[in-house]
């Protein structure tokens, strides 16, 4: 094929367009979109489109995975960093990435793409779509003997990260257990909870702000859960406040509650 001036111009414009829409490696991307499911011959991929580019969010794995897939029927807030790794399922991988399923229903988020050979994974997924096996199988071995109870050194600080507009979720049960155990072992007398309400600076320059009462709800919910778990006699100090202004990079990290377990 000869490169005619006309073709060269089209190619240049295409490259220019590509350069303006694709995120450069290391560039933060923060946007709200409908998630897209693309099936493969093994587990499905989760993708999202932003400004004409497709981003790979995560694979279907298991509840214990560091990143859980979003949900059709809901928009997702994507906060991640573009990489120069090979595309997965046609999308630019974002690493790290934080995904927040937005609570309200959006029926327009319904795209499921069929499996195509060209998008099949080039690596073994961590977990197959059926029952667990291989390296992720629970071997059902008896749990290791718990070390003798040691007095917990207090104070001890924990941070619980939230989804946008979210409260305690399924994945938080383990961290809550750590807080409870620290309080019990350390004979805690006080637990201080400071929960934040945040905003996210999106890549399009707009700001997405959490619901007004979310800081209070987060703090009160945590205190209620800990009280119900056997820590009713502990004194709780609850605070809630707005996080510093969003910067488009550290917004997800600011969406948290700090819990300080203290003794006498």
């Amino acid at each position, binding site marked *: 094929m000869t490169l005619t001036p006309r073709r060269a111009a089209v190619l240049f414009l295409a490259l220019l367009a590509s350069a303006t829409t694709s995120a450069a490696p290391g560039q933060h991307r923060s946007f709200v979109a409908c998630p897209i*499911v693309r*099936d493969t011959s093994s*587990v*499905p991929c*989760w993708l999202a489109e932003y400004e004409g580019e497709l981003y790979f969010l995560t694979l*279907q794995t*298991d*509840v*214990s*995975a560091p990143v*859980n*897939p*979003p*949900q*059709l*029927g*809901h928009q997702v807030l994507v906060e991640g960093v573009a990489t120069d790794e090979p595309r997965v399922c046609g999308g630019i991988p974002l690493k790290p990435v934080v995904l927040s399923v937005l*609570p*309200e*229903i959006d029926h327009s988020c319904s795209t*499921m793409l069929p499996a195509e050979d060209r998008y099949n994974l080039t690596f073994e997924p961590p977990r197959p*779509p*059926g*029952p*667990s*096996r*291989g390296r992720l*199988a*629970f*071997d*059902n071995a008896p749990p290791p003997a718990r070390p003798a109870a040691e007095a917990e050194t207090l104070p001890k600080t924990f941070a619980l990260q939230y989804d946008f507009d979210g*409260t*305690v*979720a*399924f*994945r*938080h*049960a*383990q961290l*809550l*257990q750590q807080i*409870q155990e620290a309080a019990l072992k350390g004979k805690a007398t006080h637990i201080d909870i400071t929960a934040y309400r945040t905003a996210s600076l999106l890549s399009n320059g707009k700001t997405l702000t959490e619901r007004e*009462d979310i800081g209070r709800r987060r703090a009160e*919910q945590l205190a209620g*859960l*800990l009280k*119900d*778990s*056997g820590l009713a006699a502990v004194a709780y100090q609850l605070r809630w406040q707005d996080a510093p202004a969003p910067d488009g990079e550290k917004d997800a990290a600011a969406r948290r509650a700090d819990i300080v377990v203290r003794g006498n």
Partner: protein
Amino acid sequence: MTRGGRVSNLRVMRSVRRLAFVALTALALAAGVRAAEPGRWWSPGDGGRLPAYATYANDYGDLGVLNTSGPIDTKGHPFFEPIGGNGRACVSCHQPANGMSLSVDAIQERWRVTKGQDPIFAAVDGMNCPDLPAGDPKSHSLLLERGLFRVFMPWPPVRDDGAAVEPEFTIEVVRDPTGCNTSPRYGLKSGTPTVSVYRRPRPAANTKYFTHHNFGVFPFVGKGPLATARDAETGLPTAMNMMADARVSTLKTQAISAAQTHLQFAGALDDARLRQIVEFEGQVYSAQVRHRGAGDLMEPGGPPGLGVRNLAAGAAGVLGNNTTQWVFPVGDVWKALTTPASPSEAPRNRMRESIARGHDVFMFRTFWIRDVQHLNTVGLGNPTKRTCSTCHGMHMTGMDVANGWMDLGVTNLPWAREEPLNPWNERKPQMPLFKITCTASAAPHAFLGRVIYTQDPGRALVTGKCVDVGSIVMQQFRGLAARAPYFANGSAGSLRDLVDFYDRRFNIGYTAQERKDLINFLSAL
């Protein structure tokens, strides 16, 4: 007669005697098992002995009931005695022949035999509403047609400590075919506001599997979320895997609650009787032991997960996988059957192969599981490409390992069984219908939002949470052949109906063969 002839005759006689002995022994053994049964129906106060092992016929073969502590003397035993005010005992609704549950066939039979006088038809919950005319089968239609007892829940909900729960939603009665939810005495606007829902009794057997303290039992439950209910005596977190809504979480508290409501027992059960009930329920197992087509499910060398003895010996609180401990261990023994020794064995082998294939459908046939609150919302994504065993993952029973409530769509519209009305159809809806409107500040149901129509709000009647509307604790799979209908609201009259619900719900697209194999597998559990 020659000596040789006498010897020959003696041999013949011995052979005849031996044959007769073998035959009589077999008959005696068989008769012994049957004779040991005090009848297929246990009435309160019968006073017989429940054998250590007994079998009961059903449409798919025989169910086995195993008491691992040996025969049970039921005379004076609080599980079997009519301790309440309405003549019922625990056994009334937990019949050995029905896998320690109660089939709709057995209910109908009791209606015929007793002309509606059996204590199971007591007005308190064996009637659609206690203020309906006595003796009229229409007053008991939900029990007679779907095997459902009335469960009456205070509204708003009340916590264990007696504090009122502030619900996140309002509840309106849209349809009230039983009359109970609009009854001035029993309804939502009565002096003691009550919501009446209608549910199946669950098997009071194989209990170690849903009362374990192993995998999945933590101090906090991510669904909701909430702090895990604790056993008041041990202080340990419980599996919260009992009853349709997990409103009680130990066998003891369940016995107390059931005695007060279903048995109309006034007062408090003493510790000795509670202990007897809990001990009995902790040692009784039920599962299918003989299959009409596949024969003996417990024969040596057979599938290691079938039959009641394997079930009793199984490890509790284990999440099944396909490497070390399958959900239902069937192995490969029925996959590669050798040529049958006789032509009569060929159909048996074909059925065994079908059961093995049905297991693989259960375990490995993927489909898109979609829009299930407390499944697709717990980190798996919506949809998730998985299999039946994703939710039904507990080794040996197919329950969730803990906190097994989710909204599959059994009671919530649009998936709940609802027949569109038309002027030419005399059938009317049987189930009540409620409109749930969640407050603007509540976290909405992830897939139904803030306005939900439901036949039974399920766990939300305990927690008052919008996200729990329609969530029901999943049930064990053992002894299914003996205790139709299925689902908490009895909406699946047969195993075929049950499989069809999932096929419709998740657009699975089972082939006729897959469907048949899956049903055969379920009928062998």
